[in-house]
């Protein structure tokens, strides 16, 4: 579905595919048409208006507002008078009980001369048509004639980009931050340039990415917004609003962007935004930022940094203890890892998170030699998740360490059942059979391990021992 349409009109604009697009446009939508010279392009403009009129007449539950963007000219009265022929039927439609007609044409003026010169035309539009909007740049002074309906700010030399940014900004300023819509992709738009190429959003149009030739048949399925640019594009648009945006809100936006990148595992980008957020958010909100900074650092392998940041965050939920445990584990502080992971398990937490925590805890027990505790944990875990091969691998290792070789063999066999390409588990089976004196099987599984991974050093050592 297409949200809005932006059309740069030219004498070559193909209309059939544009009319086909109407069926994919939201049923209440806006079409922005950009005409450098509305009189020269009047045949195209009338054709477009006629096509929209016919479409709306056939589908009386659709509504289209056509914004006609063009420079000011003093001789446009007859042109606009002729345009009313396409909209007038909708003004009295349904016995005037609708709040607004289903087809309205809004003039939007660019390149504005002084007010005096413009006044007769503005008066004409207000009396006979619709009050116009203006696109003004930063140099425009504040005196705007009363009859101006809306002001658009010329944020880019190209009015398509300016209006696109304006619409996006309106959407964004409605949000109360944090809001996940900031980081989610925009709806597809159809931005059609003068060569007849369609782009999925004004940013794609600006960077000339993802364009599709309008005449290439059914194009809706070919329009893909550059989703990787969405968050940054929205962020830049918001920042372009300037000092109007509170520092706190800017901080929350950085935080939201950080979360978005963190979810996408783009840790470096997340880190950049979390660091910026830290400088902008209130003291009260800093804990949360420290927390996510810690998670980023842990993901980057900077475990000591991560631990310090977790302590600064001072948010002790199960995630925090889990990450603390992982950090200590990776630094070789197995007892501290064990303590943190036990605390994580004291929380009520989702089962899938519990699996990871228990696995790490069991690994910590293994590393500090508390094998029976590890086995007991893993026995419970296997009842709920019999399909995770890592559990059998770890449990088998713990049985092996405690010389319970038959149980170890059973575990490694299960692990292989779940992953027949696990060289380590074949090698583990080899060692277990070797320990109980079954040399034949030990050789067999050692061969298998080395077939899958000839570089597996402990399997090579076992192989040499078995053949010596």
């Amino acid at each position, binding site marked *: 579905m297409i949200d809005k349409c932006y059309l740069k009109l030219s004498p070559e604009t193909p209309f059939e595919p544009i009319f086909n697009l109407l069926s994919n446009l939201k*049923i209440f939508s806006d079409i922005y048409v950009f005409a450098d010279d509305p009189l020269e392009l009047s045949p195209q403009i009338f054709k477009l208006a006629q096509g929209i009129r016919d479409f709306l007449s056939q589908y009386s539950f659709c509504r289209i507002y056509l914004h006609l963007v063009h420079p000011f000219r003093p001789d446009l009265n007859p042109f606009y008078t002729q345009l009313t022929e396409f909209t007038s039927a909708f003004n009295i439609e349904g016995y005037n009980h609708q*709040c607004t007609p289903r087809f309205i044409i809004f003039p939007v003026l660019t390149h504005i001369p002084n007010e005096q010169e413009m006044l007769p035309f503005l008066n004409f539009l207000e009396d006979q048509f619709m009050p116009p909007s203006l696109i003004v740049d930063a140099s425009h002074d504040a005196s705007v004639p009363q009859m101006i309906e809306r002001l658009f700010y010329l944020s880019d030399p190209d009015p398509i980009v300016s209006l696109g940014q304006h619409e996006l900004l309106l959407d964004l300023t409605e949000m109360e931050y944090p809001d996940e819509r900031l980081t989610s992709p925009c709806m597809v738009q159809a931005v059609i340039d003068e060569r007849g190429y369609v782009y999925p959003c004004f940013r794609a149009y600006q960077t000339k990415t993802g364009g599709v030739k309008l005449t290439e048949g059914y194009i809706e399925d070919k329009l893909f917004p550059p989703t990787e640019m969405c968050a940054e594009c929205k962020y830049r648009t918001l920042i372009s609003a300037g000092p109007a945006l509170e520092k706190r809100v800017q901080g929350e936006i950085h935080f939201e962007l950080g979360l978005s990148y963190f979810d996408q595992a783009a840790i470096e980008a997340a880190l950049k935004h979390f660091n910026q957020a830290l400088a902008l958010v209130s003291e009260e909100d800093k804990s949360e930022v420290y927390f996510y900074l810690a998670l980023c650092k842990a993901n980057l392998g900077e475990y000591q940094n991560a631990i310090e940041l977790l302590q600064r965050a001072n948010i002790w939920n199960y995630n925090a203890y889990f990450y603390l445990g992982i950090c200590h584990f990776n630094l070789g502080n197995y007892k501290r890892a064990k303590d943190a992971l036990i605390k994580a398990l004291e929380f009520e937490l989702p089962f899938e998170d519990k699996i990871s925590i228990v696995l790490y805890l069991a690994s910590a027990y293994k590393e500090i030699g508390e094998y029976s505790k590890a086995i007991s944990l893993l026995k419970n875990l296997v009842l709920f998740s019999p399909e995770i091969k890592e559990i059998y691998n770890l449990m088998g290792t713990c049985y092996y360490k405690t010389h319970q070789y038959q149980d170890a063999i059973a575990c490694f066999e299960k692990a292989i059942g779940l992953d027949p390409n696990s060289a380590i588990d074949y090698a583990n089976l080899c060692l277990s059979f070797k320990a109980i004196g079954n040399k034949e099987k030990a050789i067999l599984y050692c061969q298998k391990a080395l077939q899958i991974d000839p570089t597996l050093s402990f399997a090579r050592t076992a192989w040499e021992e078995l053949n010596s």
Partner: protein
Amino acid sequence: MDRANLPLLLDLLEEKWHEVSMHQGKHGKVLLFEVNPYSPPMTPISLGYLAAFLKKHGFETKIVTISEYGEHSLNSLSRLIKEFDPQLVGFSTYQRNILYVLGLASFIKSLNSEIKIALGGPQITFMPSQALKEMPMIDYLCRSEGELTLLTIAQAIAGGHPFDSLKGVTFNYQGEIVETEPLVGLEDLDEYPSPHLMGLFDYTQVEEVIMLSSRGCPYNCIFCYTPQAFNHKIRFHSIERVIEEIKWVLKKGKNRFWFADPNFSFKAERVHQILDEIIRHELKVNMWLETRVDLINEAMMKKMKRAGVHTIAYGLESASEHVLKIIKKRVSLDQLRNAIKLAQKYEIEVELFSLFGLPGERFVDAVKTLEFVKKQGVKIQGNSNAQQMQLYFGTPLTRNYARYGIKPLPDKRPAYISIGDRYETDTMTREEIEKIKALWRQNSLDRGKRVVS
């Protein structure tokens, strides 16, 4: 910022359960449309009740909301209808959306002429039956309580005889308009399952959740549809049900509530009990509610504030005693002033519903209403922007408009459209009506003339 905890698995499961439960239709599928072309998305509370009731009786239902955001394209609507493949489609119909409704109905029939289409809602209850002849795409007009009426239609279609054993319905059978006997709504509103508690609403797109703790109105204002449609009776949900729904919505992360009851404080004792429960359970709510100025007192207002009422809306209609008398409002200006003061004393925002173009109202009277609102310190914005009175089907005023000095304009209108605001009166010309409309607009705080970025 509160993102440190991941969503709990249980919550996700709960959502899934509800999604699954929506698809347990044994008897057929009913698609319901809420079309609000001029408003942001709102909780489709009426359709929610219908969907919940149909679902309870074994029908699979789906509600499609079309707000001013136009959530669908022609193609996506077409896909939706083909994929859901309903046997019956229902619409909530108002004077303001009927053009869109009829257009959508034609579109649906063009996709599959076997689909039956039923219209219900305020525009339909008292619409002249002959209007059906001007709406060939419509199969049924629902005249009685929505839940029961739509169920009889859905069951008739499921039984293979779509025009047999119907009640509360007007239909066009082979060119003949057939009226069936009316249905009486259930006395105990709790017998209607709660669309909230059945998880039928997606609250993500709405700022405020609409609740309904009662239905109907026993008063006699001559311009109003509600007392006529509900036979001047008022029915209630139990306090337990109301509180349970509030708790449910709070759990879903929304705390702004819009109580759509025409007279929230009709039964003082009941209101006190609801407010007490909210306070006792420490439910953090923000409530908007509407009531009459003669149904309020200081103790109640104080408790409302404590419970979280942020805005109270009263029907002012007119600040002229003689106009209030003609429209049978049966409140005095003194009562209005006191009720406004009382709310302001407890820092509860006041909204006043005002009308112009009322029977017997002169231009000076209409100006007096505007002055009255200003003088009371009520902000002229949102609901406090006055509207021209509308003549809807079925109201005493519409039935006897000439007697009240209403002179419809000589436009031609289809039979499915009522007089609406296309009239002048013995006491106000069209020009004067337009003038007072402009005056209100000039005094409004939110007419939103200019947007600068």
